[in-house]
């Protein structure tokens, strides 16, 4: 539906062409130089693109420093990079620090473990994006893979040394916070959404509305502060919940409220007849909800769920404020070392590229699913 609209809008000023032109020239004329205004815009944009692109190329490739010498003690000598500051990029900082940025404080010799976990995560995401893998087994695979990831990260068996979770860092933390956050938030969100729509239980509805609106009304960093600063005061002395888990709980609560609204949208979009038919069959509330309502409602909102997930994925970067070493924090800490101070742009570019890769892949998936579903709807 949307496709037909956009094409009609785009094709609105199609010109009648006199001379026989080649296809490329026709395309250029109709798409870039259709009107004088359009031509000016095109030329200006082209100029800016080429100019900025060339400057960037010069900085990032032509004048870049790829490695620096080390002194006798094995310490990097960054004088070359300092001399090139502002002219060329110092990619040597990435070469030196990439393992710390990716894996943080994880014991250096054991870093193959988080590396495998990252690959597992990517594999899981990739498999889940394919509609042909959407079977019951997928849930099982997820469960097995997540357990495997936990086991690999912690270790403590089969000769793998135990690595406590406060030594974890970098990309695995980002993936763990986002994935487990979503996994934990999902049941919560479904309950909150159902509660918010329940007619018969005003008190429960009130409670759900309170939870959803309270969380959605405050910034994530205030929740993270609460988890890191206030939460320890809530617990009796001696009971101590580890920092990563506290951040994870904050994330689950946060994600739960936003997902609840997504789920609610799905519930609202479901025709009333479905629910009435289930009633007519004599199904109880939970039977009706689990077998009839939720499967249809959730399927509807899968693209929205993916988009929300992209949001959480980016939001995990905020844990730097409470001192958990996720990808952003390790990146920032890497350049606190005196020898490498001042090469922030290179590191931030690397981080941006990593986040972009993940988010872009997910947003493509979301768009593809949306397209798929809307096609299915029309049929």
């Amino acid at each position, binding site marked *: 539906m949307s496709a037909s609209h956009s094409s009609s809008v785009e094709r609105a000023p199609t010109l009648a062409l006199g001379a026989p032109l080649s296809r490329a020239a026709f395309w250029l004329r109709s798409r870039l130089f259709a009107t004088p205004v359009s031509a000016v815009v095109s030329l200006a944009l082209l100029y800016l693109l080429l100019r900025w692109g060339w400057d960037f190329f010069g900085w990032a490739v032509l004048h870049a420093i790829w490695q620096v010498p080390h002194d006798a003690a094995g310490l990097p000598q960054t*004088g070359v990079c*300092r001399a090139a500051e502002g002219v060329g990029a110092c990619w040597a900082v990435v070469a*030196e*620090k990439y*393992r*710390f940025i990716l*894996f*943080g*404080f*994880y*014991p*250096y010799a054991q870093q193959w473990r988080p590396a495998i976990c990252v690959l597992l995560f990517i594999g899981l995401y990739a498999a889940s994006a394919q509609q042909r893998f959407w079977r019951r087994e997928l849930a099982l695979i997820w469960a097995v893979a997540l357990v495997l990831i936990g086991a690999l990260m912690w270790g403590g068996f089969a000769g793998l040394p135990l690595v*406590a979770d*406060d*030594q974890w*860092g970098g990309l695995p933390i980002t993936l763990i916070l986002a994935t487990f956050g979503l996994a934990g938030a999902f049941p919560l969100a479904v309950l909150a959404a159902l509660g918010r729509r329940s007619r018969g239980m005003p008190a429960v509805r*009130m409670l759900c*509305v*309170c939870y959803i*609106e*309270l969380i959605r*009304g405050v910034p994530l960093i205030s929740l993270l*502060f609460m988890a*890191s*600063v*206030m939460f*320890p*005061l809530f*617990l009796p*002395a*001696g009971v*101590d919940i580890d*920092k990563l888990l506290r951040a994870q709980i904050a994330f689950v609560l946060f994600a739960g409220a936003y997902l609840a609204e997504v789920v609610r949208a799905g519930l609202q979009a479901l025709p009333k007849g479905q629910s009435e038919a289930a009633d007519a069959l004599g199904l109880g509330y939970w039977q009706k909800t689990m077998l009839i309502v939720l499967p249809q409602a959730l399927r509807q909102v899968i693209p929205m769920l993916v988009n929300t997930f992209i949001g959480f994925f980016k939001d995990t970067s905020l844990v730097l*404020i*409470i*001192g*958990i*070493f996720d990808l952003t924090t390790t990146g*920032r*800490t*890497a*350049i*606190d*070392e*005196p*020898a490498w*101070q*001042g090469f*922030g742009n290179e590191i931030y570019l690397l981080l941006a590229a990593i986040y972009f890769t993940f988010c872009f892949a997910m947003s493509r998936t979301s768009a593809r699913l949306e397209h798929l579903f809307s096609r299915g709807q029309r049929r």
Partner: protein
Amino acid sequence: MQTARVLLPLMSMVLGLLALGAPARAAGSGSATLDAVQARGQLLCGVAGDTAGFSIADSQGVMHGIDADGCRALAAATLGDAAKVKFVPVTAQSRFTALQSGEVDVLIDETTWTLGREASLGLLFGVVNFYDGTGFLVKKSSGVTAAKQMDGATICVLPGTSTELAIADYFRLNNMKFTPIEIQDIQQIRGAFLSGRCDAYSTDASALAAFRFTLGDRAGDYLLLPDIISKEPLGPMVRKGDDKWFDIVRWTSYAQITAEEAGITSANIDSFASTNDPNIRRLLGLEGDLGKAMGLDNRWAYNVVKQVGNTGEVWARDITPLGVPRGINNLWTKGGLLYAPPMR
């Protein structure tokens, strides 16, 4: 509209949470912290984790710096092994709660010892591991040579530090005005100062010296003003009410100072095994029961010096590479402030 009805009582609920509070009661029982550390077999040590010279991770993720070494010394004293430390990175905001709630056993996080903190946080400082003071770094080309010339200046500071308090007081006292730029990110502060966004960068003088040192060839363009406008004694913090633990933290540091006074280093400590100096014999646990009295092994100080080194060694390892002169952080016999009470 429904949201409005719901949110208003909710907000009052949030505010209502604050009305909590009960009369203060004393708590604590002997050396609960030491028991916990020994039962766990690991010391939980709160550090900043991002400050060169104090606690910072290298490319392999290993912590370096005098705060990190302070943690190691404490682990060596209590557990006999300097490696049995778990470094818990804390932020300026979360550090006090982390200690209050027992998330860490000790906080060695460049925290300035002030009366206000001891009075209102339920925490106290064990000892001073670094005597610092608030200073200013300026561009030489600005022509400023003294802090009093900075009326109207723009100054970059880290929020949530005692630097803020020091500057606010100093400018008010001297009836001068300034514009603060408060940036939480050290990288951003660095950029802001070097690009000229701020006329001065103010923080602890040691950090300024270290910062200047990182500039390499360009260090000569920047001037560390001679004025030190505040005292910033930095040191480890512990919870109030566990006096035995407090003693251990304090005396671990004194043991390192005493070792430096006596010329004992990690390299030559074993050659003192046959010494007849009673002070050294007591320090190394060769005679007397000083360790037992504190609930530790009698070889505790030996472990500290052997595995981590004396104060001078720690300084040479962590601070000297930053180009910071030792100054008042030297032994009292060498014109500094380090002075350990007798260990007997």
